[in-house]
């Protein structure tokens, strides 16, 4: 069991600042996902924690102990690499056994430990193979087994599903949370896949250019993204972003969409009169009958059925393209003229110049029905 605390970490390569005064705390037993585009500094951060590179400034505390100047082999963390980093000259068994060998465990303990983790990860039958004889999925599981085998209190997983095929990634996305929860370890998980981030993280830290742009639960990141960029990164199909200038009348704050006044629920006072971008999740839009209040006339351009949902591309009278998503089975328009309405509670307003989200912490939490 170990918490992790990073204090004012700075890392530079030559003149480039990769991590800029970054502070972050991960509670004991928590899974924190580091999410962000490549070059955001996620992997560097993980390596700093592992101890294979040193920060230029700042402190790293593991379980409350200052580990900044402690060598990697004494930090007691487990790590899985994106490229697996298996030892090519050793069998899968020996690969997995290395952390136990370092602890000078007995042969019996090593064998039992490797076999139990091998069974857990369903690679028991390939333990005698060398990495080159393993499939990508088996390599990935071997790498994961090596990270897990010593039951390290702190696990660092660097995009471990990056190099495996889609089917396996989907399976592991389901399997991993339970696996990690069973271990009770503190986990820092790096990924570029927002679905993985949402599925695995107790909290998500969205990183960009060496700083944490937003830190919160998956729910918060999705419902209240700190800026346009984060709103765009989370969600598939991507969020609809439209330029608007909110106004106010007796009924509250409204925006004009295709000459229709759409009133927004929640506190959006701060946005009135400013140049804004409104973010509308495709699933917050629905087809409605003509004449419904707030119905926006559109033309259907294309429809993509995706098994569990149907995504429709529509065009407003002003020529702006909007994606509408609805669960399969819900009737909708698949061609010609149609009307859509906005679920005004989940609309997001961003400042057009800075991209930052405006106001209202009071976004309704749809899943639990409470204010988040």
């Amino acid at each position: 069991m170990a918490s992790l605390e990073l204090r004012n970490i700075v890392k530079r390569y030559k003149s480039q600042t990769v991590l800029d005064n970054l502070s972050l705390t991960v509670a004991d037993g928590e899974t924190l996902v580091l999410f962000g585009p490549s070059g955001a500094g996620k992997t560097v951060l993980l390596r700093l924690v592992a101890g294979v590179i040193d920060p230029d400034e700042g402190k790293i505390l593991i379980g409350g102990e200052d580990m900044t100047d402690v060598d990697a082999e004494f930090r007691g963390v487990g790590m899985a690499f994106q490229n697996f980093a298996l030892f090519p000259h050793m069998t899968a068994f020996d690969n997995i056994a290395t952390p136990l060998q370092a602890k000078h465990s007995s042969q019996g303990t090593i064998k039992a430990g490797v076999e139990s983790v091998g069974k857990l990860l369903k690679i028991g039958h390939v333990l005698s193979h060398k990495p080159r004889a393993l499939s990508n999925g088996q390599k990935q599981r071997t790498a994961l087994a090596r990270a897990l085998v010593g039951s390290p209190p702190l696990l660092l997983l660097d995009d471990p599903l990056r190099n495996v095929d889609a089917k396996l990634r989907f399976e592991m996305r389901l399997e991993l949370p339970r696996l990690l929860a069973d271990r009770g370890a503190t986990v820092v998980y790096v990924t570029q896949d927002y679905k993985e981030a949402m599925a695995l993280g107790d909290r998500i830290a969205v990183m960009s250019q060496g700083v944490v742009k937003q830190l919160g639960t998956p729910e918060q990141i999705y419902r209240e993204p700190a800026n346009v960029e984060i709103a765009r990164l989370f969600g598939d199909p991507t969020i609809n972003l439209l330029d608007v200038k909110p106004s106010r009348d007796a009924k509250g704050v409204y925006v004009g969409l295709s000459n229709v006044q759409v009133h927004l629920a929640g506190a959006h006072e701060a946005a009135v009169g400013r140049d804004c971008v409104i973010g509308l999740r495709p699933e917050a839009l629905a087809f409605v009958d003509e004449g419904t209040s707030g119905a926006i006339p559109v033309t259907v351009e294309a429809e993509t059925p995706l098994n569990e949902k149907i995504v429709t591309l529509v065009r407003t009278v002003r020529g702006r393209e909007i994606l509408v998503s609805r669960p399969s089975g819900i009737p909708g328009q698949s061609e010609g003229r149609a009307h859509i309405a906005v679920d005004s509670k989940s609309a997001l307003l961003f400042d057009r110049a800075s991209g930052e989200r405006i106001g209202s912490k009071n976004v309704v939490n749809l899943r639990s029905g409470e204010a988040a």
Partner: protein
Amino acid sequence: MEHTSLLERILRGIALALVVIFFMFPIVWILMMSFQTNETILRIPPQLVFEPTLANYTALITGKLMTAAGTLDIAFMRNLWNSVFLSVTSVAVALLLGVPAAYAFARHKFRGSEDIAFTLLSFRFAPALLVLLPLTLYFQKLGLANTYIGLIWVYQLICLPLILWIVRGYFEDIPADIEYAYRIAGHSWFATFRKIALPLAGPGIAAAGLLAFIFAWNNFVFALVLASADKQPVTVGALAFITSSGIQYGQISAAIVLSITPTLALALYAQRYLVEGLSLGAVKG
């Protein structure tokens, strides 16, 4: 294999045979000469059929060289032993020093590391004769002239840069993540060097060692100047075959056969590892 016609296969066979004959001819001719007397060798026109004799080999092994002018003592077997000893020891010392140094140069970019590495490489640029004159004077002052230690030391000029630069490349090719993974698993840097870096760079180290061995074995000028008869390797010892009563082609050929045998055997043996080394590069992360 794609299907080929009979004619094509025959032509291909002939072409291959021609290439092999062209490249193997000098070696085969030397091998044949080593079983002939000087008279049959110098016969004009040269003949492929001859009565083989082992006289050349017996002369080399017993150290008695029969010439028209009488019997000469030659130290060929001693020279051969010197070659083996000097080359093996030099390569061993160069590996002991060069491999850790190569690892340091590959993994740690310290101040001046590139300059030091390049300085070591520059030993290979300097003309040997330019280095030799001051070196001889120093060695005489230090008492290192005509000693095995002195020669092995000088041979480092040949072996060390080779091993350092070749092995460094192999170490650099090992993904750093693999070593990081071993460190994080709880092993010291030295264990990582021994258990991960060394085995993975093994084929490269073998290749560099083999190359250094061949260079050391073939060295002539350092040993010529710095060693006297009892410390001389075969390359210098071969001069003894130029006698007052002519050049002993038969013995020279036999000597060549004997002296290329160790390197040839080593190369054939190591080839397996060299090929394995090349295919090991196919392992991605």
